Every structure is written in C-alpha cells, then in structure tokens.
C-alpha cells in the first residue's frame, strides 16, 4: 500500500531565507507522525505547502501514490487533507454546530437546515469520540473543546489526513493528555495525523514516528520507540543542550512587591483579576503558572501601570505604586519584559540605539543641552549589544531587521541593565530557539542572585518549573494556590491550572 502522503524534493525560498531545502517526507497510513523543529526551522512552511497555502518552488507531492498539485486549500480538502491551525479560526459568537458546518452548510430549500446540522455534528462527534456540545456558543466553551471543534471541522469535510500545528500550546497538561487519547482513537479509525511541535515530551508520548527539521533541512526520521529526549534535542538544535537550569538555593530577603486584594478589568470591562494577594521577595523567582487568558496578562498590566486597578493596592519596596502612570512605575524600579515584543517591547521602526533607551529616555545621561545626545545613546546601545550578545551588524539598524531571539535579547538587556528592584518577565522565551532560551534564563537567575525580585509569567510549564523558587497558579482571575517549587509536580500544577485546589492535587 502506498504512503498516504509523500513529499519529494520540496524546496521553498523566501527573500533571504531558504525555508525548505530538498525535503522528503513520507507519512504512512494510520500513523501519528511528528514534525519536530525549532521555531523558524521550516515545519510550518512545509505543512502550509501541503495544505495549499504556499506553492513550492520545486518538488512533488503524492497523495496515496497519485501525484497532485495542491494550489489552494480547497484542493487539499478534496484530497482529504485537513489542517488545524495554531490559532483557532472559529467565529466566536456562533454555536459549535454553526462553526463546524460553516462553508458546507446543509440546506433545506434555500435556507439553512440547522436541525440537520446539529444532528450531523452530534453524529460525527459520537463516531470519533470527540465530546462537544453542538448548541453551545464557541466563546463560552473551554479552549480544549474549541480545539475539538476545530478537529471536527476538518473531519466534517471528510479529512483523512489531519495536520495539527502546535496543538498543545494553549492546553493544560490534562487537556494535552486528553488530546493524546483523541489522536490515538482517530488513528485507530484509519486517520493519519501529522503533528507539528517543538516540545520533546509530546513527541515521546504521542507519536509513532518523528521527523526532525533543522534550518529547512530534514535531519532524520526516527521511530519514536527507538529514541529518547536527549537524542531528539541534540538533533533538533544541532548540538548538545542543557535542558535544565542551573541555579543555587534562593537567598530570600524581604518582600519587594506586595499586592493586596487587586482587581483589574479587561478591555471588555469584565473582571479579569478578581482579588489577588501576592508577595514577591528579593532573591526569589516567583513563577505564575496558568492557562492563557486566566488574568496573568491583566495582572502584569496593572502592576506596570498599563491598565488601571479597580481595587486593591500594589506596593514596591513599601511604597504604593497603584495606578501610577507607566513612567513613574518604571522610575520607581520596575523592569518589564513584555509578553509581546512586537506590540509592546520595541518600536520596530526605531534603530536598536533608539530602542535601547525606551523607558529611560528621560534620563539625564542621554542628554546634551536641551536635546538628546545620539552619540551617548549609541555608546550605551553598543555596550548593551556587546554585553548581551545581540547579533546585529551595528546599533543603527532598525529593530525590525533582527531575528526574534536577538530582539528579545535587546529587550532583556534594556530592562535588566536599568537595574530594577523588580523584574517582570512575561513569556520571556516565547518563540525563541534553545540557545536564546538558555541565555534569557541565565540572566533571570543572575538577577535573582543579586537579590532582585523576579516575577515570571509563562504558559510553558517546563519553564515555570525550571526557573521558579515558588509557583503561584492562576485560574479565572485568582491565585488558586502557591507551591514551593520543590513540591510542585506537573500533575499537581495541571489540576490547579484547571481550577482544582491544591488539596485535590495532593
């Protein structure tokens, strides 16, 4: 029997980047095949080619042995290929059933036959054991269920081959486990699955075979049962990597940040932070774990003055900073590595030099007479670039011309070099490669060892567990529990992240 998917000699270039270089990939009937690689390795490009979103410069695609030209997603769908994107593409105010049938609606005459739609959806839901509530509105259901809706959408269109792009990024550990079960059951009913990820643990627990992509090239294809995490990591990065963070025992000092009864509204005027009490001491890293959208971002925004606190107070070194404008918060000693470096962290059209003083541009040391001294600014920027190993031709290029990792290094450099007493690191390693992650982690630990307070917010549980001295779990706008990092296990945290108490987790 021929392989369900065979991609031969696929090449794809973008300006300045060879995203796919002579890639050969074979996916067998009924297997879960992982594409493993770092961000920017070319995994998504390859899958977008398979789904018809990009056209390859060279190479051929065979579906069940027959050569096909997939020039748009409709052709891919008609060949039985379905894709679940990393960011869900659902209409929020529509019901589950309406979302699933969208684009392929059952009709009664000229009108939509919603009864049949609901029946169809319930039927495939039962058939593939993907539990969803057909009549629920998408914006009210959990992220895990939204993902099941996305999978059902592809199945409703008759997909035989499912591509899932980073499906676990938004899930709790328990939901990830559930997803694993779902995928196994789909495979047992004859589907084939391609999984894109950069998380090694998932490869080991979910896949039958794994193909490692690095810098646009296939490095190897292995049977999962014949390999291990260290081997995969080494092949993915291209060198031996240290997967753990080395740090000494925390020397905890007096509290630096104290939050009491904090309430924050989000942009829709709904309460996103519902009364948080928290202390972060000097010399410790406090990690906030939680599934995306449980109030972590709003908490950080309130501390940094970017959004208003409705109630409660925030103290820094004993002084109240509640609802101060961002400028005053910065000047009272808060460094902030923002979760979105393009939206908040950098002015992309500014040079690196100009970006290095964002937030401290009022400082006298960059002045000359009435104006700014660009000479002094550049000197300072050069210093940061050197000390934090930002790879750039010089400090005059625009921030947008740098890679994500180097952009992040510049932000980290700027925020740490300001010598803050509290550093808030939000998703500090999102989208970075392993090398850059190691670097950022090292810097945060150094800051802690200098006696500063570090508040780490991350969706990556591994990162939280590796770096933190204490871990606070946030669920639905509240801190549901604080654990000593030594007592924390993935299972305990997972239960708390889903709203369970730490007692249940015992």
């Amino acid at each position: 029997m021929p392989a369900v998917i065979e991609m031969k000699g696929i090449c794809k270039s973008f300006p300045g980047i060879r995203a796919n270089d002579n890639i050969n990939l074979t996916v067998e009937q009924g297997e879960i095949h992982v594409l493993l690689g770092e961000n920017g390795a070319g995994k998504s490009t390859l899958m977008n080619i398979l789904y018809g979103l990009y056209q390859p410069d060279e190479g051929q695609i065979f579906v069940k042995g027959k050569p096909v030209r997939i020039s748009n997603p409709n052709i891919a769908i008609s060949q039985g290929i379905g894709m679940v994107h990393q960011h869900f593409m659902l209409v929020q105010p529509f019901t589950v059933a309406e979302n699933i049938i969208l684009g392929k609606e059952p009709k009664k005459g000229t009108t939509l036959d919603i009864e049949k739609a609901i029946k169809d959806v319930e039927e495939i839901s039962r058939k593939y054991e993907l539990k969803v509530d057909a009549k629920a509105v998408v914006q009210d259901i959990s992220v895990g269920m939204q993902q099941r809706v996305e999978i059902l959408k592809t199945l409703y269109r008759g997909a035989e081959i499912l591509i899932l792009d980073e499906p676990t990024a938004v899930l709790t550990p328990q939901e990830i486990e559930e997803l694993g079960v779902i995928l196994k059951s789909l495979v047992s009913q004859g589907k084939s699955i391609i999984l894109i990820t950069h998380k090694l643990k998932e490869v080991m627990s979910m896949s039958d075979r794994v193909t490692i992509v690095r810098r646009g090239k296939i490095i190897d294809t292995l049977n999962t049962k014949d390999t291990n995490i260290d081997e995969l990591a080494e092949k993915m990065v291209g060198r031996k990597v240290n997967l753990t963070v080395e740090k000494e025992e925390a020397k905890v000092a007096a509290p630096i940040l104290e939050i009491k009864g904090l309430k924050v509204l989000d942009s829709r005027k709904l309460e996103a932070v519902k009364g948080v009490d928290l202390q972060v001491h000097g010399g410790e890293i406090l990690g906030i774990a939680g599934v995306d959208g449980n109030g972590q971002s709003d908490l950080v925004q309130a501390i940094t003055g970017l959004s208003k606190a409705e109630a409660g107070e925030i103290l820094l070194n004993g002084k109240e900073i509640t609802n101060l404008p961002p400028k005053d918060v910065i000047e009272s000693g808060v460094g902030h590595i923002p979760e979105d470096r393009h939206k908040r962290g950098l002015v992309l059209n500014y040079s690196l030099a100009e970006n290095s003083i964002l937030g401290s541009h009022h400082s006298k040391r960059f002045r000359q007479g009435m104006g700014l001294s660009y000479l002094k600014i550049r000197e300072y920027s050069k210093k940061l670039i050197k000390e934090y190993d930002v790879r750039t031709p010089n400090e005059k290029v625009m921030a947008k011309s740098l890679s994500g990792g180097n952009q992040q290094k510049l932000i980290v450099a700027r925020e740490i070099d300001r010598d803050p007493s509290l550093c808030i690191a939000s998703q500090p390693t999102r989208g970075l490669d392993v090398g850059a992650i190691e670097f950022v982690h090292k810097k945060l630990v150094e800051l802690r060892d200098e006696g500063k307070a570090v508040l780490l917010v991350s969706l990556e549980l591994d990162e939280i567990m590796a770096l933190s001295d204490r871990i606070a779990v946030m669920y639905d706008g509240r801190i549901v529990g604080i654990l000593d990092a030594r007592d924390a296990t993935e299972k305990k945290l997972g239960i708390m992240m889903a709203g369970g108490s730490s007692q249940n987790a015992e």
Partner: protein
Amino acid sequence: MESRMNEIKEDMIKTLKEIAYPLVAILISFIAGGILVYSFGKDPVVAYTALIKGSLGDWNKLGETLVTVTPLILTGLSIAFAFRCGLFNIGAEGQFIIGSIAAVWAGWAFAGLPAVLHITLTLLIGALAGGLWASVIGWLKAKVGSHEVINGIMMNYIAMYLSNYITMTLLNVPEKAYSVEIADTAKLWRFSQAFEQLKYSRLHIGIFFSLIVAVVAYYILNKTVRGYEIRAVGFNPHAAEYGGISVKKNIVLAMVISGLFAGFAGAIMATGVQYRVNNLFGFTGYGLDGIAVALVGNNHPIGVILSAFLFGMLQKGGPLMQIQGIPKEVVGIIQGIIILFVAANFVKVITEQIKQNKELKRSAGKGEVE
C-alpha cells in the same frame, strides 16, 4: 569634535536617503508629463523651458515663486510634523486661516508699538491662534478618540466662516469685502526696499523664517526627548505607552506644534503679502496644498523645503506655459502624476523588488538558509 562632525555627516546621508525616492519619482513624473505634452502635438522642451522661465526666469519671477513657496513650506511642515506622530492634520487649512485673521487683528489692534516688537507680537499671536485651533482637534482625539480628519475638516469650515464674520464685522472696512489693513509696523520687510533687481516682487523676509522653522522642526523631531516620544507614538503607540510615554499628551502636543506651524504660515501671508484678510468664498488652499507638499517631501523637513519649492515653481510657471500655447492644465497633470507616483511609493516598491530578487538568486545559488 570629530565624532560630532561624523554625526552630522551621518544625519545628512540619512536625510538624503529618505528623500531619494521622491526625487526619482519627480524625475519620472516630468518625463511622463513631457510625453503627454508631446502627444498634444507640442514640444516638451518648449513647455519645460516656459515653466522654468516663468518661475525662475528673472529675479522678480524667482521672488514671486518664493512668495508662494514660503507658506507652502510652513503648511507642509505642519502636516509632516503631525504625521510623524501618526496624525493626519487636514485641519492645517483652518489653522492657516485662523493664523491669518489673528495676525491681522494683532497688526491692526497694537498699532503704535515699535516695529520689531509689533511684528514679533503679531507673528506670535498668529502662530498661537493656529496652535490653539489645532489643540481642539488634538484634545478631542486624545480625550474621546474622535478622528482628527473628521474634526479637522469641520474645524476648517468653522475657521473660514469665523474669519469671514470677523472680516465683515470687527475688522471690516465699510462697503468692502475685506478687512482693515495692518499697521506699517506689523508688515514684514520686503526685499524690494533694498534690491533694485527685486523691485517688482513681493518677496519678504518670511522665506528665511520658514527655513528656520524647518530646521527647528527637524531638531525637535530628531534631537529632543519630545521628538523621540512623538515619533515613538507615531510608529507604535503600544510600545510608547509601555516605555512610559503618554500617548494622549503627545497627540495633543504634536497637534499643537503642527497648528503653530500652520498658524505661522497664515500670519506670514497676512504680514508679508496681503496685509489684510479677504472675505473668503472658499478655502485658501495653502493648508490643503501642504498635504501634497508633505507627502512628496516624505514628511521630512528638508524634503518639505524642496517639495514646496517644486510646487511653487509649478504654480508660478504655469501661466507662461499657457502663453506658449500649452494648456496650463498640464501643470496640474504633472502635479497629479508626481503625487500619484509618490503616494503609490512606486519607486521604492520597484527597487525593493529588484533587491529581493537579487538576494533570492544569491541565496538560492549558495543554498544558504537565513
């Protein structure tokens, strides 16, 4: 000291790079205009010779061209400055009108002051009036988020009718549709008073003022903390906010500074050329032309000076072209083509395309990644 020189040198190169694309676009537009003239059965060389003769042919013509260029530089700067903060100050027209009427009032009301004091006060009041007028638009944008274009257009009408009302009542010359004339002490010094060559031109010292304002605008934008904040807000308000920059405050300030420039333009026209304000039947056009000037000048103060000069030339050279039998609408068409080319950023798109292709070929050849 040497590093200081280096910095200036680098600034100049940067400036040149920023205005290089519009320069090429202008060149192409003139070629396109020439082809158009040729297709009418006329000689493009004759047309362009007439254009240049009409605008730069002798000292007086040059003088008159510069009379037009002066307010265009200022309104162009006004729009460019606001644009750097991400604002489209279409209200420059209204700020120009208010600047004019305020200057005429000051030039008339404070008669008797010594000349230097009077002229300074008059220009200052004109500029401040423009700034105040613009502050309304900025404040509305910052406070309630209403769009500056809508409010700007409405404020233009209010300015025009307010100016007409004052012209026909408080400052009216009986039986006439214009205002009183300003006192001699409030009039700008004209070159015709000292230079025989410029005897028939109204060229006044305001041209230097406009050049000084361009330098000031450049300095504020590129060399001060305020400029740093304004540009940061223009590029990325979220990052600016994160960096402790008040977005609202900078929007209002940028708008006020922009209005100061436009109001100053109005005051310069009142004190240097017209000495009074007429009852307007429509917009003066200086504020609106400023949009095109800023666009072609790539919103860069130095670019604005050059593009204001170009537009002044086109406006003043047109009539002589007509005498040569070439419809003066051709000038309008050339202006249109220039704006089209610049707005479509056509030259930049093409050159970047070529660059990209080259890079692609190179990296493909080497089989390189990244």
